[in-house]
């Protein structure tokens, strides 16, 4: 793939803080016009990777190219083509959101007239409130606006949905979709798969400074484990244990005595085998959680290790 087709490429990208490695050789290739997600637990290296793209951190080794340039030499001109939302957004000062956004518009340029009020309106952000008086969620909205306002070629968004209520999250995901239709590239991170699965074309799973897998969202979802909990009225705990124990992909099963009998477990893969096993029971309640990333990443990690060992 030629460099012009990629918004971001990294080859064997490494970063260590003192002697502590943060990135242990990351290979990424993010095609232009795509939405690329990176997920992983805290400390996996998501933020470090993003900060290197913005030249806030300098790599210890390997190569990185952003929009065809290296961040170090691209300088301010390159950063004007990028919109960035930090993972830990700090906004302070006795200025209104409007004034702060005007400042960023001045230094990064290219903001259409009417663009800022339009974005603020969509997210439900009051631009006339002083920044330090904004709630965490409203600060996050302001951060999203400053990243999107100059319609940059590349958006780098670190945990963009944190602190947003579900309606605003949905609006944000629509904005990401529009950016893609617009030909912009979006690189976003989350520690919760559910937050980015609707938006992302492909997802890299990062763990401990290494990429565990890169796949499309559907594949990842199929492999992800979720917490399930069922309450079965008038059931015999031993029968429940036997029936559920036979379900493929079900692990960590706990069955509590009582009426109803409550059984909890993690389930990887499809729901159907579990539902089939529950036929014949009186199901009082069934709770299925969103696929838990921590567990699914660990699951992937174990799976890779097992495959590696079997080879």
């Amino acid at each position, binding site marked *: 793939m030629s460099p012009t087709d990629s918004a971001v490429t990294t080859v064997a990208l490494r970063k260590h803080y003192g002697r502590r490695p943060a990135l242990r050789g990351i290979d990424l290739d993010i095609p232009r016009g795509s939405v690329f997600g990176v997920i992983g637990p805290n400390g996996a290296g998501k933020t470090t990777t993003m900060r290197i793209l913005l030249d*806030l951190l300098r790599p210890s080794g390997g190569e990185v190219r952003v929009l065809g340039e290296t961040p170090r030499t691209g300088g301010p001109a390159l950063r004007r083509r990028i919109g960035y939302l*930090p993972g830990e957004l700090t906004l302070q000062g006795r200025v209104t959101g409007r004034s702060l956004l005007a400042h960023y518009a001045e230094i990064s340029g290219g903001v259409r007239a009417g663009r800022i009020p339009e974005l603020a309106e969509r997210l439900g952000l009051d631009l006339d409130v002083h920044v330090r008086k904004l709630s965490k969620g409203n600060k996050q909205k302001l951060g999203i606006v400053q990243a999107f306002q100059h319609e940059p070629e590349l958006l780098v968004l670190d945990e963009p949905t944190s602190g947003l209520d579900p309606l605003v999250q949905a609006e944000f995901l629509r904005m990401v979709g529009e950016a893609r239709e617009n030909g912009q590239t979006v690189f976003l991170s989350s520690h919760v798969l559910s937050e980015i699965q609707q938006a992302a074309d492909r997802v890299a799973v990062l763990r401990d400074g290494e990429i565990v897998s890169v796949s499309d969202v559907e594949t990842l979802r199929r492999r992800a484990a979720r917490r399930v909990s069922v309450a079965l009225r008038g059931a015999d705990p031993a029968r429940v244990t036997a029936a559920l124990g036979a379900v493929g992909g079900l692990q960590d099963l706990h069955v509590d005595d009582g009426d109803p009998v409550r059984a909890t477990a993690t389930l990887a893969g499809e729901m159907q085998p579990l539902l089939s096993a529950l036929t014949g029971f009186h199901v009082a309640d069934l709770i299925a959680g969103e696929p838990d990333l921590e567990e699914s990443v660990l699951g992937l990690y174990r799976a890779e290790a097992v495959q590696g060992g079997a080879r």
Partner: protein
Amino acid sequence: MILPLTRRALADSWRSLLVWALGVAGAVSLYVPLYPSIGGNADMQALLDSLPPELIKTLNYEDIATGAGYVQSTFYGLLGFVLLVIMAAAWGTGAVAGDEEAGSLELTLAHGVGRVQLVLERALAILVKLLVITLVAGGLVLAYDAPAGLGLEVGDVAAMSASWLGLGVLCATAALALGALTGRRVWALTAGAGVAVVGYVLNALANQNADLDDLHAVSPYYWMVGASPLAEGWDGRGLALLWGISAALVAVAALALARRDLKS
């Protein structure tokens, strides 16, 4: 528009600048109008003569009987000096290290600004603010000149102001440079205030004893008031040291910040 970061820094801090200007104006007004009843007063002189000479030398009160000596000793060299050092060190710290530790520098640098540009523009904003403070102090001193019978020359007040501002700029740039080198507020603040405190102590020691006179040469405090600019006019050597080292520290700050990782 030019200098977006300088204008932003000034717009963000005009309230605190106003408070500091009022404080400095208060300090000038507290001492300077009292010259007829303290510095120029024979009883007061007798009292000062009765104090241990070491104390007088430490406080730089030797020339308190003249208008120029009085204003330099009480305001520019003492209370005004303390206020100047506090605000200069605080502003120099806030420009990089404070902003960085708070986490807000990251977003600014992710936009279309360079790190050298950021250091230079913020240093300029500090210079503008310190200049405002200096002009407020100098203007008020001149306003009190005739009523209090100080007998000052306008040119000498300008010379004193340039030296006083130079010391403030040195403290601010020392804080800026250490902040840019380390990214830590505590180091920046220590450097900014330390330059002034160490300078004051070295000067006081050198005043005590002719054997220690060489210490004057390395005291920024002495560079400011050692040649008594309020009485004697422009002190080229002191000004060159204060402003030259400040310029070098700004260069150090710009290069240091450009080379390192941003702390998170």
